[in-house]
């Protein structure tokens, strides 16, 4: 792995007697890390500490291997840029606002024009350049705020839920724009969000933040499929969690018994261990009883009753009740329509043993 661009060592942030943040964390040159966590997990505090906007109660921050101090933090901050959920723009034109960071760094007027114009075009707000910033829509304001940061060519771009306040179509196009820009420029970026879709779209590595602690940090697939504990499983959207007991292990396969069935799960668990089996909702399929759809022999089948159907445009989220607990399945609208199921109906939930992660 490349050198650590920014590292938080033993960082702790206290508010009075409560600990808001307590972690080790390092970002490497060229990567995009997304930290996910529920509200109040300490995401914004994490970004403020990383951006040297807030001094931690204890521990230290290293940028390019050098420890941040009161003296050198301004110089360090000038190699970073932060973009926030609410873009607070100054009273002035879009151009003035986008140019602000360059102005603060003492760029000349012609240099600003040369640097800024391509970015205004890239983010599609060049035609708004002379508009007053206060008359912009939320999406346009956030684009201005992104230009304001990106034009600085930062070594580190910090994004604090930049899409959270936008409407869905705006959010999606801006997310894809940002994804392309990060890939093109290779800018190192850290984004915090509570939105799994955004994390999946941007993050090469994903961090899971819970009550100020980093539960897990790793490649996207690993974090989304192999959470380290139940709190992490809940944050990464592994909604189905079944309590089971390990019976016997053969090779790397352990047979798990749960109320109403059993499953062979990859992993070495001691016999008699209490294990939680986690399954992602999109991995669970639903069929009517006994219509024996073509599914692999090794699949796990659980008899369930449909407790709740949450309809949406493309996919339905279905809560199922079984002897072993509650399951959640995400079913595409066409296949759900084909089943014509209603709340209270009996249904068979099936999933591949590979989809199970035991913790």
């Amino acid at each position: 792995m490349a050198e650590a661009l920014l590292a938080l060592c033993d960082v702790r942030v206290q508010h009075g007697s409560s600990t808001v943040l307590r972690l080790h964390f390092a970002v490497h040159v060229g990567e995009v890390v997304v930290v996910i966590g529920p509200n109040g997990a300490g995401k914004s505090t994490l970004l403020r500490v990383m951006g040297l906007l807030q001094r931690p109660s204890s521990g230290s921050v290293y940028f390019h291997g050098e420890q941040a101090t009161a003296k050198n933090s301004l110089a360090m901050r000038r190699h970073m840029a932060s973009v926030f959920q609410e873009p607070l723009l100054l009273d002035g034109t879009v151009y003035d606002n986008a140019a602000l960071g360059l102005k603060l760094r003492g760029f000349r007027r012609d240099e600003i024009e040369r640097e800024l114009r391509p970015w205004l075009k890239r983010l599609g707000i060049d035609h708004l350049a002379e508009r007053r910033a206060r008359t912009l829509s939320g999406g346009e304001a956030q684009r201005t705020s992104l230009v304001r940061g990106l034009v600085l060519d930062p070594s580190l771009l910090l994004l604090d839920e930049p899409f959270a306040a936008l409407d869905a179509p705006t959010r999606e196009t801006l997310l894809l724009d940002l994804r392309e820009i990060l890939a093109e420029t290779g800018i190192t970026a850290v984004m915090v969000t509570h939105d799994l879709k955004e994390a999946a779209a941007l993050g090469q590595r994903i961090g899971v933040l819970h009550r100020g602690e980093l539960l897990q940090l790793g490649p996207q697939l690993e974090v989304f499929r192999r959470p380290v504990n139940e709190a992490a499983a809940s944050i990464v959207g592994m909604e189905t969690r079944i309590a089971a007991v390990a019976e016997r292990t053969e090779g790397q396969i352990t047979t798990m018994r749960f109320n109403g069935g059993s499953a062979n799960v990859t992993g070495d668990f001691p016999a008699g261990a209490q294990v939680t089996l986690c399954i992602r909702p999109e991995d669970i399929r639903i069929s009517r009883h006994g219509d024996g759809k073509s599914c692999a022999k090794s699949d796990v089948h659980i008899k369930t009753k449909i407790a709740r159907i949450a309809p949406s445009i493309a996919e339905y989220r279905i809560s199922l009740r079984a002897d072993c607990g509650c399951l959640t399945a995400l079913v595409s609208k066409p296949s759900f329509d084909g089943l014509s199921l209603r709340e209270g109906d009996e249904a068979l939930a099936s999933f591949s043993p590979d989809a199970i992660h035991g913790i």
Partner: protein
Amino acid sequence: MELIGQGIVKAIELVFGGDSEVWAITWLSLKISGTATLISLLWGIPLGIALALSRFPGRAIAVALVNTGMGLPPVVVGLFISILFWRSGPVGFLELIYTPSAMIIAQVVIALPIVAGVTMAAFQSLDPNLALQLIGIGASKRQALWLLCKEARLPLLAAVMAGFGAVISEVGASMMVGGNIRGQTRVLTTATVLETGKGNFDAAIALGLILLALCFALNLFLSHVQQRGQLKWPRLS
């Protein structure tokens, strides 16, 4: 009615007839109140910003003091400044009583809390995260503070208007610490009181009108600056 009519005629005569004493009084009023406002801005704006942005023990008391100061009766200010500067008073040796300097000091005491209070309100109306965002794109503390001031410039102009308006029109303190000495400490307000007392209503009305015109001209200018480029409010029906 006749009185007012005569007063207006007399006022026009005084102003445009080149009565040098009226002009001297007007000029002195502007000089004293202008200087006092300037000093109040120099001290009051930083004080207001400090009260708005910082947290320290006793801040609530300081804010309450400033807010009380915003409504300080000029007569009371005049009384205390007089006691201080009286020849036998604690700082009597400065020999400032009945001088324009003493009037400036009294007017600063009146205007400073007004400027500080309005400045504090102006800064508190800004989004608290604005400073953070400015620093987040590389502003130094000084740059961030300057940008915040620029952002709050409209309400800060209100501080100028309120401060100047309060001191140009006050009479109690000027009378007590200035003494209304002809050619030395006689200003528009004290002269108006004097002329009214003497029964010269036309002269009093003339002085009053000059004072009003002065306030109006200044506020017209500042309002123009303040309202320029303001976003239009939607019509509320």
